[in-house]
């Protein structure tokens, strides 16, 4: 299996950024996820070919990290932080609200494939607790009501690109610090939007 020309070119560029091609496994796994919407077996096979590893080794790496979703994932992955700082300020309630609104339990993906909901460990937003991420785009200072409204809005508007600034503006509250100017980019799936050099997502 190979990817389309553009993706293959990006893959080659990624491999070129490292002294040894094995190092490209992680960004290539993101690329594979961006390609299929989740990390498929074929995606892992392609990454193995590109890095000279066995399929089992690639699976070994992929399964170590929580962000490589091997079992399919919804269009919007809502990760609610319930680590210590967010827990102290009501993160559990936000999680309950999100689960109730979407009808998707913690750790699950809805049948329509729209939402996946998960509790996350600390996402580095403790100053703006409780916080959550949608496709790894951060929203700080989220109340249970905000969480519900956010999910409703996503379901109704189905944005193709999830922009953190936009969601923060609509549903966020206190921030850990001033984020600076609004950014245009955002995530196009459950893959972190980082990739001017082709890592994953579009970014900006």
């Amino acid at each position, binding site marked *: 299996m190979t990817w389309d020309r553009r993706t293959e070119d990006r893959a080659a560029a990624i491999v070129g950024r490292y002294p040894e091609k094995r190092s490209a496994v992680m960004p290539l796994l993101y690329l594979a996820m961006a390609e299929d919407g989740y990390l498929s077996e074929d995606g892992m096979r392609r990454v193995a070919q590109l890095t000279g590893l066995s399929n*089992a*080794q690639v*699976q070994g790496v992929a*399964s*170590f990290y929580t962000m490589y979703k091997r079992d399919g994932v919804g269009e919007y992955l809502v990760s609610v932080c319930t680590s210590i700082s967010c827990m102290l300020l009501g993160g559990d309630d936000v999680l309950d609200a999100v689960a109730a609104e979407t009808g998707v339990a913690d750790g699950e993906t809805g049948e329509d494939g729209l939402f996946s909901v998960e509790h996350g460990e600390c996402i580095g937003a403790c100053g703006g607790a409780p916080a959550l991420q949608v496709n790894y785009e951060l929203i700080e200072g989220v109340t249970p009501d905000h969480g519900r409204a956010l999910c409703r809005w996503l379901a109704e508007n189905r944005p193709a690109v999830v922009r953190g600034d936009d969601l923060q503006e609509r549903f966020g509250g206190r921030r850990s610090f001033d984020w600076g100017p609004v950014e245009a980019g955002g995530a196009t799936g459950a893959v972190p939007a980082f990739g001017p050099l082709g890592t994953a997502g579009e970014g900006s």
Partner: protein
Amino acid sequence: MAEQPTLVTITVDGKPAQVPAGTLLIEAVKAAGVHIPHFCYHPRMKPVGMCRMCLIEVEGPRGMLLTTSCTTPVADGMAVHTESDTVKKAQEGVLEFLLLNHPLDCPVCDRGGECPLQDQTMACGPGESRMVEEKRHYPKPIPISDLVLLDRERCILCARCTRFSDEISGDPLIEFKGRGNAVEVNTFPDEPFASYFSGNTVQICPVGALTATPYRFRARPWDLEAVESTCPHCSVGCRISVQSSRNQVLRFMGVDNGPTNQGWLCDKGRFGFEYLGSPQRLAAPLIRNADGVLQEAAWSDALDLVAERLGALAAGGPDVVAGLGGARGTNEEAFAFGKFLRETLGTNNLDAQLGDGLDARLLAGITARGTIDDLERARTVLVWAPDLKEELPVLYLRVRRAATELGARLIVVHPRETGLDPVAAHTIRYRPGAGTELLRRLADGSGDLAEARRALGEGPVVAIVGRPGAGDDPRLAEAVLAFAAGLPGATLLPVTRRSNVYGAADMGLDPGLLPGRVAAPAGTGGRDAAGIIEGLIAGEVAGLVLLGADPVADYLEPARAAAALEAASFTVAIGLFLDESAAMADVVLPALGFAEVEGTVTNLEGRVQKVNRLLPGPAGARPTHEILEDIARRMGGSIGAASAEALAAEMAATAPAYAGITWEALSWGEGRRGIVAPGPAGSQPLVHAPEDHAPPPVGRNLVLHLARVLYDQGTLTQAGPSLAKLARPAAAHVHPEDATRFGIPAGATVRVTGSGGSVELPTVFDPSLVAGTVYLPLHCGASIGAGLEITMEAVS
């Protein structure tokens, strides 16, 4: 001789001890008589310090430091404590942690009785679990290959198996998966653990997480009887422990013989014992009756008949009878066979090989014969030989280790990709037939071979040389050996097939050789395998004795071999099975086989090792030397074979190279690792002048590369159910350019026609070949002969 390690002084639990410098503490204290419990540490793999069982205390500048003894190298003056309260508490803690999620199914676990976790728990484990929560659960054993099952609940995550397959065998098909408490060992979906070495993981798994289908539930360790022996499957001669229960061999275990197998076995060796207990084993002599049917007969009748017929034929002159075989048994059997043929029958028509090896005079004459252990010190390794992974798997492991762990530069010359290519610094490909030309260019270092040539100038060099494919002229290998002998610090390891070819050559089973590596006097005459087969067809040879040889299946031109047996006026086959050749014989005599007789074998280094007896064998089968002696007696002679041991003694007396290599010497201490019979002194003789070898022209048309794969249709492989199912369907490997040239679509079936016949096979595109070459596995279903030139056409 092994170098003496320098010693340093440490104190272990207050007692001073002299231990080898540079070793890990766990080994150092072992040398001082202290055993530290451990699970993940394995002396043949890099330490990882994962299980934490081997914690001990070391005195340091800032007080006692709890540290893993498997990862800490000893230093002079170190004071270590292996029994302090802190150490005990820590070890008991680790043990408790390991047991939290480990099932209590020892009574039904294959490892029960030989499990370090069980032993450790009995010795100092907690009486009862303090954990009231549920254990981790997984579905019970899952098959991860045709041979291996994995029970993840029993796994203690020591990573021995995954490290073996990554570090040692180089096929990382099993890996850790998941993280934290969810870590498990597993394969990739739909990609089984189909490694040639998978059985090693079963052996080194410290618990019963990995089990082998051929052994599962067959026995309890305490019911097993065992002897140490030498694997009979190839000429590496891996040291094994043969284990049986109720006269059935149940498993082979690798024994860590440092100089050869370092504890490892290939799966063909490990699981290739099932044939011994096969119901198809011959259990009574067979005589062809008046209707032409082989029928069971009494030993005395069979022996009488053989003596009478052979005697009558031999009376017609020394050239009328001949013997083939003797390369699969012991040296004692080979020696007896040689004496029988030369002294009793008076013939010099004898060959242990079937035209598919190297000249026996060459094997016997190599002066710079190396040892496998030379690979530990080699700077450069040249492999111009069969694909070692397919034919000498454990030698492949040793070469791989040299290239990956020890930094040797590996040069692989072969007509297509081999198992060693991924770790080779240089891979050189050629078309069969063009090897002489390639050798000349390599020797000159011309063009793209300059780098490889430069590496060959850096010694010590180990050269592993054989015939890469059946069609390669043996004189090419001879020329390569002659070239390699001139490289700096070179030692040579010649490669041929069948486990005891070297022993057979040393015992003189070749028209040009007498026992003990002595050249037969000039003008002795005698036919080799090809000469015997052609002689039979021409009617110049009439009587044939086969000893564990099956030319109808194994000879490179099988049709000629079949015609030869057809033409023979009398054939007697001595062996274990009614193979294709025996089925054509007039008399078939059942012999005892591996683990049923005692003796010695000689591996490709010239290392003589003991094989031992554990089983009686089928009631009707007899030891080969006794069979031969009984025939000789009936013919009025004797080969003096009172016992195998007596033969061994005579052999040691006759053969200077074997002087002192007695059964006694091989049975104790260092002798159990084998004794290398020294090669001849002087400079490397050439059996053939280089100009003898005029390679056939290799034109635009196709040439054949015919080579063996590990799991084939061979009799011994097929007689055991576990290995029989591993043989893969054969395919014709075609270079994509040739596919275009001959109009062969992907996946099409082709008919390949060679010197000895045609075969139809599905195609596989193989860009690793040089265009103009077709690769077929030997034993690919039909025989096509070994001639270089072939034709190919698409069918259907």
